[in-house]
């Protein structure tokens, strides 16, 4: 669906000093290579200024790459922008493609004409979105009167009316409350699995990734730091897991082989035992622990996705320093 090879994009930035104007070149995307198969759901994450939006703009053909090669659904985006636009959907969390003063339904009708969708397909797709996203009562409301959460549901519907095979979402859940986020994620997961729509989404909310994207791509300073299933990245970056035990009575932490670090809290009522996933299994550990102490409750904790990403950035930083 998407093929990107050695993609680069440079910007000239003016650095004015008095009346003299100098330019320096900033590389926003610096040799990015990846592939996305049809039907995948890929999370594209990185800190602000990492090059995410620049990549998205190049994928949709709005920005021309400085060098490198892109194919999206078989076409070169910047050369066949209009052709591609018919086949992909784009949602920008911070911008709107709906008509501000028109009711939602009128916006959808206009989009139907712009994308030349047949009346029958249009009705079918609209009905489906309206039902799943709960838009019934909102269709006659002018867009300017919708809440952000309502509007985002409208935006997603707008992007799906022409049944795109690829849906690109640039921070779709930004600014939404928990319930709206959850609803949106559920819907996106549904169209990904049921309709097979390929998803590529950028986000700062890592719950989006956890819920939606089996595959994660991390980018920073215009380079891909990591690319793979979330679980694998976790295992690769943080070899440690943690067993948290709550004791019935306060006491010292059990001494179990395989544990590399112990942290106690609540006056010895709770202990965090760190262990290496490659060397010890949680089951082994638990068997050992319950032999020694009386356990009230226990839990195995995976490192938070935030930690994984932070460690990825850190690793890159270390490499840069060493170089």
């Amino acid at each position: 669906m998407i093929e990107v090879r050695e993609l680069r994009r440079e910007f000239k930035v003016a650095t004015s000093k008095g009346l003299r104007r100098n330019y320096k070149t900033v590389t926003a995307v610096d040799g990015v290579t990846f592939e996305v198969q049809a039907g995948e759901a890929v999370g594209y994450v990185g800190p602000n200024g990492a090059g995410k939006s620049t990549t998205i703009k190049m994928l949709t053909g709005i920005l021309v790459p400085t060098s490198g090669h892109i194919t999206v659904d078989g076409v070169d985006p910047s050369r066949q922008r209009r052709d591609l636009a018919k086949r992909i959907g784009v949602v920008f969390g911070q911008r709107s493609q709906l008509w501000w003063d028109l009711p939602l339904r009128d916006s959808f009708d206009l989009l139907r004409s712009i994308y030349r969708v047949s009346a029958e397909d249009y009705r079918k797709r609209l009905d489906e979105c309206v039902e799943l996203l709960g838009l019934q009562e909102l269709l006659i409301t002018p867009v300017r009167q919708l809440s952000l959460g309502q509007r985002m549901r409208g935006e997603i519907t707008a992007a799906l009316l022409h049944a795109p095979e690829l849906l690109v979402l640039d921070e779709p859940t930004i600014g939404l409350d928990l319930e709206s986020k959850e609803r949106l994620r559920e819907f996106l997961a549904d169209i990904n699995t049921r309709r097979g729509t390929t998803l590529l989404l950028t986000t700062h909310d890592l719950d989006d990734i956890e819920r939606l994207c089996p595959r994660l791509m991390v980018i920073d300073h215009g380079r891909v730091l990591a690319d793979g299933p979330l679980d694998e990245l976790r295992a690769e970056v943080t070899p440690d897991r943690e067993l948290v035990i709550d004791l019935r009575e306060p006491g010292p932490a059990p001494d179990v082989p395989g544990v590399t670090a112990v942290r106690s809290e609540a006056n010895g009522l709770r202990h965090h035992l760190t262990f290496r996933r490659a060397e010890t299994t949680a089951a082994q550990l638990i068997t050992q622990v319950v032999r020694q102490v009386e356990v009230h409750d226990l839990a195995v904790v995976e490192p938070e996705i935030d930690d994984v990403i932070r460690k990825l950035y850190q690793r890159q930083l270390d490499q840069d320093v060493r170089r």
Partner: protein
Amino acid sequence: MLAGMTTNVVFGLLRVAILVAALKAANGEIADYTVAAANTYVWIGQGLLGFILLWGTNELAERVRSGDVVVDLYRPWNLQGALLAEDVGRGGYAFLTRLAPPMVFGMLLFPFQFPATAVQWPLFLVSALIALVISFGFRFLIDISSFWLIDNRGLYGFWNVSSGLLCGLTVPISFFPEWAREVLWLTPFPAVLQAPIDVFLGHGDPVKLLLLQAFWAVVILAIGHLTLQRAVRKVVVQGG
């Protein structure tokens, strides 16, 4: 809408008063303008102003500045064509609310020079429509200049100040000294306003005027198309 109409009519009255006073001082005729022609010129001009929308809203320029224009650019449409269609639609509404009222007002209350032949009526409508297209072309170019300028308010302001004089709104172009008249008719500006008025008044050959307008409409839309293409290929869309 009512406020717009009232302002429009008040300005029309002022312009009529000044122009007629000038004509009276010049023994009732300047160039090819009699008192009736001058009245007609003013009321059609007042009507066309809102119909062709000589002074736009700079909305697209703001979208370029904020980066919202990405939304317009990734749609499977020709952006200039789509906006032109929207503007022609706006013209349909403005025909009823902006063009017709001052003309009718002038016809009923002032000496008015009606077209000598019936065919001038439809020709005037065609001419006004082409004028709208050219006016749109100018506004589009000024808007998309912000791809390079980021802030195009200077250019926008300059257009708002100078276009009235160049297009024949302030005074008829035939009042200009001969050299200025000749230079102006080599530019697209008279085609925006003076040409439809001339078609209505029967000043000059209407067919020639229409052909001239059509020529400029094609030229300015072509320039707009090429400029937009260049903007998208060479220039950066703002905002993350």
